[in-house]
């Protein structure tokens, strides 16, 4: 691969992967809102 193509691909893909991973990690680790919330799966836990 040419240097330009490789640089373009790596910068783009790494940036997008890191940003996507960061937001999904935030979703998984953010403290849940108090009940009643919008989701039914956790209703029996409170």
């Amino acid at each position, binding site marked *: *691969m*040419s240097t*330009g*193509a*490789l640089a*373009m*691909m790596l910068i*783009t*893909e790494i940036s*997008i*992967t890191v*940003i*996507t991973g960061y*937001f*999904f990690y*935030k*979703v*998984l680790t*953010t403290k849940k*809102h108090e009940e*009643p*919330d*919008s*989701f*039914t*799966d*956790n209703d029996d836990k409170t």
Partner: protein
Amino acid sequence: MANNEAWGSRVGLILAMAGNAVGLGNFLRFPVQAIQNGGGAFIIPYLVCFLLMGLPLLFVEWSSGRFGGSKGHHSTPFIFDSMDKRKFWKYVGVFGIFTNVAVAAYYCYLESWTLSYVWHSIVGTFDGKTQVEVATYFGDYVSLQDGAGAFSWSPIFFWVICLLLNTWILSKGLSGGVEKAAKIGMPLLLIFGAFLAYKAITIKAGVEGAKFDGVVGLNFLWSPDFSSIWQPKVWLAAAGQVFFTLSLGMGSIQCYASYIRKKDDIALNAMSAGWMNEFVEVVLGSAILIPIAVGYLGIEQVVEMTKSGGLGLGFMTMPFLFEQWGTVMSVVAGLFWFGLLFFAGITSSLAMGTPVMGFLQDEYGWKRKPAAWAFGGIVLLLGLPTVLFFNQGVFDEYDYWAGTVSLVVFALLEIILFAWVFGMDKGWREITNGSDIKVPLFFRFAIKWITPIMLGVLFLASMLLPESDWGTSFSALFSGEGWSFSPDSIIGKIMNKGINAEIANAATSEIADQLRDKKFYINISRLGLLLLWSGIAYLVYHAYKKRIKEGRFTS
């Protein structure tokens, strides 16, 4: 009120929203757009449009959906109605039902091809076929013919199966159907995509019939032509791609978000779903189709084949290329490729069903199951012309008016409503209320100024698209020669410029007659879509009158 739907979990909601956005275009349209618009440099206008138009519109659609939902509305006519006192906004919201029904009508047919090709990959239909024979098979398939020229029920069978599957999942509800489908479909899509991307990148020249290494295709796709970013057409292509890939302007995001409570986050959810779509599109979407196709066919042939879009390459060529990987791997690759496209498709088509169901449940008190079957029935009726008259251009006509123009019109009007009528003070409160992240203030400015201007330019450019390039066209206009509309512009389409030119240039009178028939079908399709929009508008009017009569709150 019959509508007591709810999401099961936050991850399920995000996967469903991401599944709504991830569609066949992520794998078939994005890579083709990239190679046609500057290769690696295309990503610059693409990401700029994502930040300035995609993310702001995601915030607008998620927050207006949650706002409407807090008032008991789950489809855009009455979501919009609740945002301003003027009564005409509910008719703008008609687009949010119309688009979903009309797009589902042809999209489910496209989705059924993927299901059918999964089956044919497993049973070995493509074994031993040449590249031309595989391409001919697809042509026969969409013409409803078998190899011998007789009528084939197979495409209709798979289409009906696909419709039944969609309807059945929808009838199970939001958490029991749509969310479960997303929780199964999205992880499988990622696994299938990662496997195919690995296979594509590791293709070696001279092994299993490959002419070039897989990285030759990657190099071709990512080599930046920086001069392209000064061309208006590249920016239009980037804006269009961002728009369609995020399923903006459809009304389905608002419907999904309307089931979120007022105090719960939407900003982080919108970011997660939006960026997940980008991951699938840019990281996986760029690593499969083009590297495999270039590895076996070479750059020149791929450039030629992608002139008519990615569909041909995806269905007419990939099964033949997979055959080069041996008996077992060809089955696995076919299953994974068409399975991936199927999951991408079904998670989108399910989202198209929910606004219609929401409307019927909210306004007419329908229960979930009858509402789902009503949607299935409408899509069956409206989709039949796209199946029976595919070669007469009905499918393309639905795609253009409902799947392209309608989205831009709807998004332009909804952002005017949100930023300028509902107002940015209230709007910003809606976006940030309950947010689990700090939303940069920049987006407030973007929603009010940049995104509406970009959408306005996108709409005007689509309407006035010239036959030659923009610079030459403006020179011709200012020198008094007038403006020549492209056959692909909205005005050119209305004037039937493309098909009229084809009729005028037809080699024989027989071909001219066939083209006149095609023009007839095209005009009938447009009339049908117009009647559909009007019919939905009448239902909204009827529902509004019913609300008044029952003393129910509207806005």
